[in-house]
């Protein structure tokens, strides 16, 4: 039991590190990329689908707080929304079959739209100010997250299938 918990903590730290790496690489490509692509969400979604809702919630907390640390926004807003994202994604993915690609894409689009909506609402509630949409680019974020997430799962599936064949 203790070993499993330690392994999960280690995995969560690795997941967060992976998110920071992705975010840093995306940032190097320009500010618009960072608006349209949230590396932390992709990582949270991936680990939530793979490891379930509890791990997803913890990974969401870790990734969200790190995202907040790299921002001037109120510390904890991304933490809370990503915790909810991780839990919701893990919970639903554990109860319905989301493995077919179109279903996976639709599912990820719904959860990432939920996350963005929750983040916008929470930011508005905390700061009493509307969140800038960056000429609508922010609205593309769930779509990008869904596409990247689906591609990630498909690539992983293909890789595992090839390894099994070999």
């Amino acid at each position: 039991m203790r070993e499993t918990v330690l392994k999960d903590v280690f995995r969560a730290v690795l997941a967060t590190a992976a998110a920071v790496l992705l975010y840093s690489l995306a940032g190097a490509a320009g500010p618009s990329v960072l608006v349209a692509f949230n590396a932390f969400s992709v990582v949270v979604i991936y680990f939530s689908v793979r490891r379930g809702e509890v791990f997803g919630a913890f990974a969401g907390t870790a990734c969200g707080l790190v995202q907040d640390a790299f921002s001037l926004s109120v510390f904890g807003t991304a933490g809370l929304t990503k915790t909810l994202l991780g839990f919701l994604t893990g919970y639903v993915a554990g109860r319905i079959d989301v493995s077919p690609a179109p279903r996976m894409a639709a599912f990820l689009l719904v959860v990432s739209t939920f996350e963005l909506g929750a983040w916008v609402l929470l930011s508005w509630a905390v700061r009493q100010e509307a969140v800038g949409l960056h000429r609508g680019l922010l609205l593309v974020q769930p779509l990008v997250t869904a596409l990247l997430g689906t591609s990630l799962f498909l690539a992983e599936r293909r890789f595992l299938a090839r390894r099994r064949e070999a």
Partner: protein
Amino acid sequence: MPLWDKRQSVVILAGLVVFHLLLISIQIPRGADKSLFEKSVFFVYSPLQRAAVGAVRNVRSVWKDYFDLRGAHKENRELKERLFFLHQENRFLQDRLELFRSEARIRESLERFRDDLIPARVIGIDSANPYRSLVLDKGSLDGVKANMAVCDKFGNLVGRTIGPVSLREAMVQLVTDKESSVNVMSEKGRLVGSLTGTSGPICELRYVLASTTGGEEGEELRTTGHDRIYPAGIRVGAIRSIEKDPSLPLFRKIRVRPFFQFNTLDAVAVLPQVQGGEK
């Protein structure tokens, strides 16, 4: 059966949600101050960001150095670096000339300025809104402290350093952040106001009374140094539009386009601390 066994995951979620709500609520009265926890997270993960960006730059650099332009690229880089400092010096010299018109003081300021200037590279952009902050690859070990002005390679104001400043990394609040405020003056009309960001590409010049004359579209704005953070005379932006503000009839609504561009923000200069516009 206890609740823990029955609804373990829901209890964990509830615990995490409460934790976050507490975390958010304790910040509300403290304003922009960063908590120790937030600083710790930044301290732990910012070296990772630095390593990631450094690795990418190194790979790019190796490719260019050895397979692309070899020696020419290296020389070019050195020349660019020299040009960067010359830009800064030139801009500073011009600004000082306009402000003091005293050659002796200009020379003295320039000498000190050259010694203290800290060149830095941008390794990250704000994860929630790119127009709010940046992360630099220089920290307290390099002499960076909070409230130091940051300029781009053309001498245009980018923002100021804010806490947390870690050992090797520092955060910069951009002039485009809505919580940023820079005291500026227009070049020709001597229109004085407070430049505030909108967390978007355009800033606003606030607290300019409707009765005030002067100021026209395209006019340059420079720092006054009155805020005791930014040295006087740094170019900030140009007036984009001047309108009447129906919601605040007492003031003019002046939109400003900042000069700094994200695509030229690879290298920046951190300026040493100033007192009332003087070094």
